[in-house]
Structure formats: structure tokens, C-alpha cells
């Protein structure tokens, strides 16, 4: 059926990504295009390659919101979520292409803007890219998008041929009229298809018929990452653009009192020295290096405010009080009568753990480029949530949301930092607003990034368990004391004052259900919120909760005189998927058989972000206390596995993230400010410390679990349990850089 109105192209809201090239439409604002010696534009007509691509794309008919097809059969798939390394761009394209039945070798992708999404009544759904939701949160509607487009393309061909649509099928971008063997391609009927109404009902394929989903296809975004062509937010340039470096009051909650720009105004390239909001000062210059050089020399006075005396010790005191308090305590999971069980126990085991503040430390520091006029504000930035960035831009610009837009650029890492908080966007717009009509790129220094994170929150955890005379676990009380992320990020998501995210991996049911059946259980949280801003951090609260639970279960196994695998298996009898991943790693690692001399093993199992994960680590600790992690066997059951080789990459990467946190991750507080300033005092793991990782991807089907985060949860506890096996030392304070691992 034909539409009454012509399908209007929305090309000018879009920027492209992937194979087509990092072209930014709104054709005025083009990235620098230079050859290998930096000479500008090679094209004689003055257009960069990117703008030519965009002009070509402007002719492309949109079959529906998700799919555009060019006459040469190039398929452009719209991706609403953000690619930040996790491979979601390729995975989502696989989902659309599976139903579309297109030629995968001709697939490319582009990001629609959040502004276009609002104008089109939320046609692309959520832009939020966190909580390992990229694929599991949108698989249904993106596959429908592909299926609907396929139907319309086949219908267009059937109409052209004057045959019944049921006599036609499509595969590999070719439509066939079966009775006559006539064929045409998607590119030839795309314009006609774009004028049809979409079908009201569309059926998705049965998973057993998938051809592309489940295949280890290569990423779509690799080529430009091998030669420097990939543009990240920090790399953006525009004609007439100025650069800004910023310094906010290092003390949390502190304000800008004054600055003396007389010393820096005349420095090379400096255009403006300005206050940003009420807590920061920025220098704007021709180049960022000039801006930052001047900022370093700028005398600034801060009003440090009420947090100037906050220290790690004062925060620890708050948390210690919460370990035994009954004030502001919320229950996350409860069954049976834990007090009675503990009273009747043959043996009581008790331990208290502590997990520190950590910075996301994305390789690319925070940045955003903004262009403000009294009628319009555009922002170009790496963001995990384009819509949230748009709201931040609109608010900072003082303009209605319809007059603003955000153009997403590839992220040099996200890990949660670029999702909930767009402080860097607010600052960039606040600066650009003081320079109307001039695009300004704000790039934070690493030092600013370390000082103004939204940190992985601090918690302590006291666990008390009872064992009967057979060594069975009869009761467990888990008391978490510490910071709520939701109280800072989004209090509206809280449940009568409780932050259920705090209990990830310990909840009675759902994506973060506790793995074990424990007869008498109480998990509760004494909310204690120090004045250090927390945020979602890759893996979120599953990370430390898994350390607490899986280290303590190991403690209980040893207290009961039982094998850590057997002790867990018994508690997992009613949790077959958790048990299956645990058994898989134990088998592959050779649990129960002797390891090589000097090598010791540790286990962990957890459910997080709807996936089931387990790990077995093999470590040695020498007589100087030097730890070496030799190998980790890891298993993941994510339900459906869209791209197994990318899952392997995420699992391997999760060990780097989780073990970097375990070995080194710690932000300490002194004078109300973070003490760490750069990678020299906030280190991250190197290749020399990286263990071999054997990944078992074991999708059991029937559900969609996350990939980017779950494995982080099992990384640290598996290593900690192996360290205990090696040394007899139970580590309960992190990171390990502060701990003497020598046996004894």
C-alpha cells in the first residue's frame, strides 16, 4: 500500500559512522581532512571526502527508520545506542540484517541524532547505552525494523512485477519471484519500498533459522581504528573553532571565588579567560595546548566550602558506623529467620570487606564541542546517552530542546562515565554561550578527569554466617554499608528510599538474582552517602558484591572443611544455569586435578546483567609476594550469543577492567579532593600482567543477557580465592597494591 505523502529525507539530522566514513552532516562543520603530512583537503573543489559521502547519502531513500538502501545495494543501518568499544554497533547491525535478509558485506551504519529522535516521536527508542543493555534492551524492536523493511522491499518488487507478494522471497539483498525465477535487488526497489505503508504485523524468525545472529562476523568499525582516521570527540575540528581547557574547584562542592587573568591574557593564542558556571574557570585559545598552558599559569582562588575536611578516614568512619547501625537501613533480600539460624549454628564465621572509590579513567578524557547562537545550540560529543546529553545541552544553552541537537562521536571509552552525567557538555555549552557563533571544543586534562569523576562508590560489607555440624550453611547476614549511586544519579528510580541497585547479584530474583539457595538470609544496606559524587561504573555494584559474596563463600567452604567447588555446587542445585557455568570452568581448568607446581586455583560464579558467568583463575605468588595470574578460564551464558568472537573480546576485556580495579583501582580523599591525578598514581594493568584467558561461550537460549559487564564480577574473586589457595591469606581490603601477599 502506498503512502499519501512522500517520505521526507531526514538526512540532515544524521551523521554517519562505519565504512561510509566519519562524515558529519550539517555540512558546514567538517572534520579536518589532511594527508599524512597534515596538508589540508586533497579534493580540488574544497569539499572533504566526508562531505561528498554525505551528499551521496542525501539521495538515499529510507525504507524505514532503521534501514536505508542505496541504488548500489549499500545498506545503511541506523544504530541508536553508542559504540564505545563493546561491539554493540556490529551486534545491533547483525540483528537488523538478520531479518532484513540483506548482503552483510554491503552493510554500513550511522547514528541518528537524539534531536531527530524527539522530532520523530521516539522512533529509535532509547539512546542510553549502559547496564549492558545495548543488545538485550533493543533486540526485539531492531529486528522488527529489519523485518518490516524486508517486507516492504519484497512488496515493492511484487508490485513492480504485478505478482502476489507470497510468491516472492528475499535473501542476500536479492528478491526472487519464485514461479518465474525473476530477480531484482534491494537497491532497485528501495525508493518504491520507501513509499509503501509498513505492514501492521510482522513475525520474527525462529532463532533456529538465524543465519547471521550467532556468527563471529568481524566488527564494522575496525578499519579507521588502524590508521588514525577514526575521529573521536577529542579529535574534532571545525572551521573557526577555538579550544578550551578547564579547571573546576578540586574540592567537591567547592566554588570559584576569583581569578586573575592579567598574567595570561597576553599569552600566545589566548582569546578569553572566563568563569564557567559557579565552580570552574576556563581559558579559550586558538589551540588547546595554548589554552592549557595559560590555564596552568592562571592564579585562581577557590571557596572550598563545607567538604574541605573530608578524608578517606572520615568516610571510613561513616561506613563503619553503618555496619552495625539500624538507622537508614534497607532490606534487599530476606527469607527465613537469620537471627534464629545464627543463634542455633554450630559455627559462626564473620568477615568485613572494603571496596574503594575508583575512577572510570576512559582513555579519552571528557570533552565536548559546542556551537551556541541565540536560536540554536549544537553539541558534538562522545556520549553513552545522546538523549541525556541533549537535555544537558538544552538546559545549559537556555534554549528549548527543539532548538538543540547532539551529534554523537565515537567514544574513546565510556565505562559508565559518559552516560548519566554530562557535566562536560554543560561546561562546553556554558563556554560557547559566552562566544556566540564560535564553535568551542572543551577538552579536559587527565588531571581534571581524575579530579572530577563520578566514582565507583565506596562500600564496606560485613558478613556473618552460620554452619551446622555437617558444615552446611544455615544462615547468612550480609550488611552493606556505603554509598548509593541512585541517590546521586536518579533518586526517582529509588524504591521508598532504597537503592535496589546496591544489591546487584544478591537480589531474590531478576537480572541480578543471588546465585545460591540460602535457607535463612538477610541482605541489607545501611545507606551512607559521603560527599564524593558516585556514578555507574562498568559492572556497577555487581563488582564488589561478587567479591564480597564469592570470597566469603570461599571462606565458608574452608571453615566447613569442604572443597570450594563442592560447597558451591550444593548451594546451586536449584540454579542450573549458574551451576552449568561453574561446572564448565571447573572442568576446563581441571579443578580437582593437580595444577603445575606453584600454581593455585580459585573459583567464582555470579549472575549479573541477566547473564550467568563463572571463572577459574590460576595464580602463583612468589616468596617476595609477587602475584602472577597465569590463566583464567571463563564461562558465559548470555542466553543468545549474537557474535561469539565479540563476546570473547568483551570477556577478555572484562578481566583487564576487573583486575585493574583489583590490583590498582583506588581513589583516596584528602581535603575533600581526590588525591590521584594521572596514570602514574592511578595505574591500569599492562600487557605484561595479562593472563591467558580461555573463554567458554555457552548460550542456552531463551533469554537475552548482557555481555559488556557481567564477567567483571567474577574476575577479582576468582583471583582472590586463588591467592588464598596459594598463600593462606584472605584479602579483604583493596586494591592489592596496598597488600603484602607474602605467605604466612
Amino acid at each position: 500500500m502506498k503512502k499519501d505523502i512522500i517520505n521526507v529525507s531526514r538526512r540532515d539530522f544524521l551523521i554517519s559512522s562505519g565504512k561510509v566514513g566519519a562524515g558529519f552532516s550539517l555540512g558546514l562543520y567538517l572534520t579536518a581532512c589532511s594527508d599524512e603530512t597534515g596538508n589540508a583537503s586533497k579534493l580540488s573543489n574544497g569539499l572533504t571526502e566526508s562531505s561528498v559521502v554525505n551528499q551521496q547519502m542525501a539521495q538515499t531513500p529510507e525504507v524505514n527508520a532503521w534501514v536505508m538502501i542505496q541504488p548500489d545495494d549499500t545498506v545503511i543501518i541506523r544504530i541508536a545506542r553508542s559504540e564505545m568499544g563493546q561491539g554493540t554497533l556490529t551486534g545491533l547491525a547483525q540483528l537488523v540484517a538478520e531479518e532484513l535478509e540483506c548482503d552483510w558485506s554491503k552493510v554500513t551504519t550511522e547514528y541518528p541524532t537524539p534531536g531527530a529522535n524527539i522530532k520523530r516521536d521516539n522512533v529509535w527508542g532509547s539512546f542510553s547505552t549502559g547496564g549492558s543493555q545495548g543488545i538485550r534492551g533493543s533486540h526485539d524492536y531492531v529486528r522488527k525494523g529489519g523485518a518490516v523493511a524486508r517486507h516492504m522491499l519484497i512488496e515493492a518488487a511484487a508490485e513492480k512485477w504485478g505478482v502476489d507478494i507470497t510468491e516472492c522471497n528475499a535473501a542476500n539483498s536479492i528478491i526472487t519471484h519464485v514461479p518465474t525465477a525473476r530477480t531484482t535487488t534491494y537497491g532497485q526497489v528501495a525508493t518504491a519500498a520507501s513509499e509503501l505503508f509498513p505492514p501492521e504485523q510482522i513475525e520474527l524468525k525462529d532463532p533456529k533459522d538465524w543465519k547471521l545472529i550467532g556468527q563471529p562476523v568481524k566488527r564494522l568499525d575496525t578499519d579507521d581504528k588502524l590508521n588514525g582516521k577514526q575521529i573521536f570527540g577529542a579529535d574534532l575540528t571545525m572551521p573557526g573553532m577555538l579550544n578550551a581547557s578547564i579547571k573546576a574547584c578540586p574540592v567537591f562542592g567547592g566554588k570559584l571565588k576569583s581569578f586573575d587573568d592579567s598574567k595570561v591574557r597576553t599569552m600566545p593564542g589566548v582569546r578569553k579567560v572566563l568563569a564557567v558556571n559557579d565552580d570552574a574557570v576556563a581559558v579559550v585559545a586558538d589551540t588547546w595546548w595554548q589554552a592549557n598552558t595559560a590555564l596552568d599559569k592562571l592564579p585562581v582562588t577557590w571557596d572550598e566550602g563545607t567538604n574541605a575536611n573530608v578524608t578517606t578516614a572520615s568516610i571510613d568512619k561513616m561506613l563503619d558506623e553503618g555496619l552495625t547501625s539500624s538507622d537508614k537501613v534497607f532490606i534487599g533480600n530476606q527469607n527465613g529467620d537469620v537471627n534464629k539460624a545464627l543463634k542455633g549454628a554450630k559455627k559462626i564465621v564473620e568477615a568485613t570487606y572494603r571496596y574503594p572509590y575508583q575512577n572510570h579513567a576512559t582513555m579519552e578524557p571528557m570533552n565536548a564541542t559546542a556551537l551556541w547562537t541565540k536560536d540554536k545550540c549544537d553539541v558534538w560529543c562522545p556520549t553513552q546517552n545522546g538523549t541525556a546529553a541533549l537535555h544537558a545541552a538544552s538546559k545549559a544553552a537556555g534554549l528549548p530542546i527543539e532548538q538543540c541537537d547532539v551529534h554523537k562521536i565515537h567514544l574513546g571509552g565510556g565505562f559508565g562515565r559518559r552516560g548519566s552525567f554530562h557535566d562536560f557538555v554543560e561546561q562546553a555549552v556554558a563556554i560557547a554561550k559566552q562566544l556566540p557563533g564560535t564553535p568551542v571544543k572543551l577538552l579536559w586534562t587527565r588531571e581534571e578527569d581524575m579530579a572530577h569523576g563520578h566514582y565507583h562508590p565506596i562500600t564496606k560489607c560485613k558478613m556473618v554466617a552460620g554452619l551446622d555440624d555437617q558444615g552446611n550453611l544455615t544462615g547468612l547476614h550480609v550488611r552493606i554499608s556505603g554509598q548509593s549511586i541512585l541517590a546521586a544519579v536518579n533518586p526517582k528510580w529509588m524504591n521508598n528510599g532504597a537503592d535496589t541497585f546496591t544489591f546487584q547479584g544478591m537480589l531474590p530474583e531478576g537480572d541480578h538474582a543471588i546465585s545460591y539457595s540460602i535457607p535463612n538470609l538477610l541482605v541489607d544496606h545501611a545507606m551512607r552517602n559521603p560527599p564524593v559524587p558516585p556514578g555507574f561504573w562498568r559492572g556497577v555494584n555487581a563488582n564488589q558484591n561478587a567479591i564480597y559474596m564469592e570470597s566469603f563463600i570461599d571462606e565458608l567452604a574452608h571453615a566447613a572443611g569442604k572443597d570450594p567447588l563442592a560447597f558451591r555446587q550444593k548451594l546451586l542445585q536449584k540454579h542450573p544455569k549458574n551451576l552449568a557455568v561453574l561446572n564448565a570452568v571447573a572442568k576446563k581448568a581441571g579443578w580437582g586435578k593437580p595444577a603445575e607446581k606453584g600454581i593455585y586455583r580459585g573459583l567464582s560464579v555470579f549472575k549479573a546483567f541477566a547473564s550467568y558467568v563463572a571463572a577459574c583463575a590460576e595464580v602463583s605468588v612468589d616468596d617476595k609476594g609477587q602475584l602472577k595470574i597465569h590463566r583464567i578460564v571463563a564461562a558465559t551464558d548470555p542466553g543468545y550469543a549474537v557474535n561469539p568472537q565479540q563476546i570473547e573480546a568483551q570477556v577478555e576485556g572484562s578481566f583487564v577492567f576487573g583486575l585493574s580495579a583489583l590490583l590498582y583501582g583506588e581513589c583516596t580523599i584528602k581535603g575533600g579532593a581526590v588525591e590521584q591525578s594521572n596514570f602514574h598514581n592511578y595505574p591500569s594493568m599492562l600487557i605484561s600482567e595479562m593472563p591467558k584467558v580461555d573463554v567458554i561461550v555457552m548460550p542456552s537460549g531463551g533469554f537475552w543477557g548482557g555481555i559488556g559487564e557481567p564477567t567483571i564480577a567474577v574476575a577479582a574473586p576468582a583471583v582472590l580465592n586463588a591467592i588464598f589457595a596459594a598463600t593462606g591469606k584472605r584479602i579483604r581490603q583493596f586494591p592489592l597494591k596496598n597488600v603484602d601477599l607474602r605467605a604466612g
Partner: protein
Amino acid sequence: MARINLNGKLVDVDVDGSTPLLWVLREQLGLTGTKYACGIGTCGSCTVHINGEAVRSCLVPLSSLDSSQNITTIEGLSSDNSHPLQLAWKELDVPQCGYCQPGMIMSAAALLNKNPAPSDDDIDANVTNICRCGTFNRVRSGIHLAVDIKKRGGA
């Protein structure tokens, strides 16, 4: 005015001599493949070659350079992703976010310049770049694969 030898061509740069090579590349010459991430020579994202050796360009002031030194950036490694490391990286899908990868590749390329078949220990000692996404195991495999590709005459 300084004259440097960049990716095989002489280039004149008119900027304060204290400006680090990293920022000359990025801001004066528009070569943004070389990344800023720490600015203190720790992370390796800004790695380039000077006379074939891996150097952290954030610590190299322009004034320390002259046209006798051959500077190579990621843009100069190959014009068409045909360097063995680029071929291997593509084959193994090494990059995740990709931000550290130009520096990672340049560190690996400098290692292969002086050691055409490095062992794992050689890689550990020479590739000291930070990658927060965690591509290390594929980086290691990629270096070994690049050696094979070169042996097979792939590039």
C-alpha cells in the same frame, strides 16, 4: 619556524618551540591519529617513531627536533592499512574503542623494527601502553600474526 621530517616529507611548523610534538601533530598539522590521554608519558597513546624508535610524543618539545630526525606517525605507517600489524589487527578484530590503538600499533611496529620475531617476554617489555578496554591478548596475538604475515610476504 621549525622544520621537521614527518612521514617522509619536510614540513615547516610555526609555533612555540616548547610545544610538545603531540600537540604540533594534532593541532598544527591536523594529524589526530596520535592521541592525548595522559600528557606525562605514562600511557603510550601518543606513541610515534623517531628514527624508528617508539617515543611518547607528549614529552618531546618541538625545539628538540630538527629535520635530521625521521618522524613517523600512525598516518605514515601505511597509506592503505597494508602494514603487517594493520593486516593482523584487522584479521583478529583487535580494537575495541580504538582510542589507544594508534599508540599500541606504533609501539608494536617499533618493536618489530628492532626485533622481527619477538617473544612474549619481548612484547611484555616493549609494549607498555595502557588499554582500558582490555585488548591485550589480541594485541599479543596480533603481533605474532604480523610476524607470520611478513614471513609469508604479505606486506
